[in-house]
């Protein structure tokens, strides 16, 4: 150390340059009274930022140029199409600027995109159901609200009955609305919620079954999970729409929408099970053993010791599955159920609005993006909140 320090002091350029070189004649301030100067602009200012972040090396310069050129060729025409030449006011295609976006299309069809063909006078029923769902969701997800168990029980038992009565009608003077008239965002949310609840419940059971020490139960669950994961969602949907009626006894028939919901839940349960299994496997063996040691039976040790910890570990996987499930509700249009994408596609194929695909797709993409992106951000926040460090 000493040798290095000495050599530094005697270095011809070093001497007198630093604040510690007090013998140097060039020093303008006594030791310790040097004023706080801002760092040189070329090292921290915007110029340095641009140099470090955009033009660091020849390769960087080339890539920056490529991306800048790409943005230059794509962005201005899009802005021009969407905002500058886009038409917001009017009633029909004729009111639109042919060179720009025809947002009139979305405005005129807005009710249809949200409620499908649900009778206009009864939209309040959908709104009311959505409001109850929103309140229940808020109560359940806001950490400070107590009685989570009661809220969950209410949501799973009473709420479906209320929703059924409100949406289907036929009692209490509410007009009966057949499910083929349902559609749009409303139907997407409905199928997603039903699918998530069914998939989560069945998925937890399947994951526990797969991890079970009982060989027959574990192999039945494994076989189900692996079979479902090996085939595309669309084949399960076709199965639910074409084969399920054959599986049921004569005279029993389920509505197509209900069959689609069952198909969605059964399919995503396999993925949910794999997400939960990840959490179960991440739990140290000691937790299982401690639970048995204090005399808890299987179901008690699962529900009080294992699952609360395992589910916390599997939040990222569960959230990813939920996001995939919501995105894949679009596939319902292939079996003739008009969820959001299906109804926009049908509207854009209408001769009166033919060619308005892009406007419709932009709107649908925005809806899904906001929801899915929001969910993934929420899951990151939830993970942080529940993280207890072990």
């Amino acid at each position, binding site marked *: 150390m000493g040798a290095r320090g000495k050599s530094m002091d005697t270095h011809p350029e070093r001497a007198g340059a630093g604040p510690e070189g007090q013998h140097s004649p060039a020093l303008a301030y006594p030791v310790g009274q040097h004023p706080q100067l801002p760092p040189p602009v070329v090292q921290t200012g915007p110029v340095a930022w641009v140099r470090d972040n955009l033009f660091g090396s020849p390769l960087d310069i080339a890539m920056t140029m490529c991306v800048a050129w790409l943005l230059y060729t794509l962005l201005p025409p899009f802005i021009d199409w969407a905002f500058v030449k886009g038409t917001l006011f009017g009633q029909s295609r004729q009111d639109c600027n042919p060179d720009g976006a025809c947002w009139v299309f979305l405005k005129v069809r807005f009710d249809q995109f949200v409620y499908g063909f649900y009778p206009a006078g009864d939209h309040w029923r959908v709104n009311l159901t959505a409001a109850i769902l929103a309140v229940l969701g808020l109560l359940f997800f806001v950490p400070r609200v107590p009685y989570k168990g009661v809220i969950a029980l209410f949501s799973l038992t009473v709420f479906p009955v209320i929703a059924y009565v409100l949406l289907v009608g036929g009692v209490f003077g509410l007009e009966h609305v057949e499910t083929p008239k349902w559609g749009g965002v409303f139907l997407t949310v409905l199928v997603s919620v039903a699918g998530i609840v069914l998939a989560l419940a069945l998925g937890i059971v399947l994951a526990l079954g797969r991890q079970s020490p009982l060989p027959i139960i574990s192999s039945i669950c494994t076989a189900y999970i692996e079979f479902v994961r090996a085939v595309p969602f669309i*084949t399960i949907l076709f199965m639910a729409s074409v084969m399920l009626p054959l599986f049921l006894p004569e005279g029993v028939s389920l509505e197509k929408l209900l069959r689609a919901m069952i198909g969605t839940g059964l399919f995503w349960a396999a993925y949910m099970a794999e997400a939960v299994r990840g959490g179960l496997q991440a739990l140290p063996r000691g937790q299982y053993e401690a639970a048995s040691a204090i005399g808890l039976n299987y179901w008690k040790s699962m529900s009080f010791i294992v699952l609360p910890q395992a589910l916390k570990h599997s939040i990222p996987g569960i959230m990813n599955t939920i*996001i995939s499930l919501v995105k894949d509700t679009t596939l319902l*249009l292939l079996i003739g159920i008009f969820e959001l994408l299906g109804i926009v596609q049908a509207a854009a194929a209408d001769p009166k609005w033919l060619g308005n695909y892009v406007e419709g*797709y932009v709107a649908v993409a925005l809806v899904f993006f906001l929801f899915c992106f929001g969910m993934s951000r929420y899951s990151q926040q939830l993970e942080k909140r529940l993280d207890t460090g072990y």
Partner: protein
Amino acid sequence: MAVTTSNGTLPARTAPWHDPRKRAAFFQSLVLVLVAALIIWIVNNTLTNLARLNIASGYDFLERRAGFGVPMNLVDYSPDSTYLRAFGVGILNTLLVSALGIIASTLIGFFMGVARLSTNWLIRTMAAVYVEGMRNIPVLLQIFFWYFAVLGALPQPRQAVNVADSAFLSNRGLFVPAPVPQDYFWLTPIVFLLSVLAVIVLARWARRRRELTGQIFPTGKVSVALLFIPALVTWFATGAPLAWNFPSLQGFRFVGGLTIVPELVAVWFALSLYTGAFIAEAVRGGILAISKGQTQAARSLGLSAGQTLRLVIIPQAMRIIVPPVTNQYLSLTKNSSLGAAVGYPELMSVSGTMLNQTGQAVEVLGITMLVYGTICLVIALIMNVYNRLVRIPER
């Protein structure tokens, strides 16, 4: 526990419902009986319903005439072909778009994954926007976007975009010259394959020599020469034996050449870009999982940034990247079934038509699921073998 005391008396007996083994046996038989009963009930209902609805069962229909046309076929097919052959056409189209998609999404994914870690702010941000955008928008919407909004907006064949009178782009697809092999063409690919084998042998030999003696052989340069020079020599020695069949406009459509239907392009683009975003996340996660010390150690040994990435980071990151990427390949293959939504004649689309024509839902969907299951199994097996190769042997 079968413990008996020395004088032969049994220890205090537990009730059968408190004996874990008996309880396990009971509950398992109960579940088994319930599952078996459910299956028997379903099969019974199905048989009754099929008889009631007069739907034939069995696989005889596979030998019958299909009677529907397919806009794109890799093997000879006409409406007079059998259902079995239609299945084959569908499977080949599924394999084609899956293979193309896997190649493209791997390239996009690795590029974007590395780009998200770039020190260049613009590149990093662009990659982040791409990944978040693609991951959060349904893939079916993306297929529709490419098919209806982009490719559907292309001009009619008569006003097709003309590239040097040999390739044409219109709303009927992309028309490119088709290669027509002449005599002795087969020699060139064979020579090329032999060169590939030679390069593999050379690389192994060079590696063993390096490990034994520390001498570095210029494998890269020699390989390039070995790959291309013999093939090029053969190519010209046999007289460049490849003719081209150019597409030409006749009336309202193009004749000759190779047609790439817009359905294929739409499904391919959408699947590659969608899956590429997920692969990018896997690649980014794999690289981030390698500790900074590895980079610092490599740089202090005097390796350049590129060498550090190529020789130190990527080989270690690969074993983390491969399993999630395998899952993405499987999901891409399964998502190729969405081609049915725009009429790309892959397996699901073909079997949907068959299902409507024959009404034999059980058989048609059964075969379809079996084929998808088999394809996924084969991809998983290949990737498992690859994973074993890239895995760092633990000592």
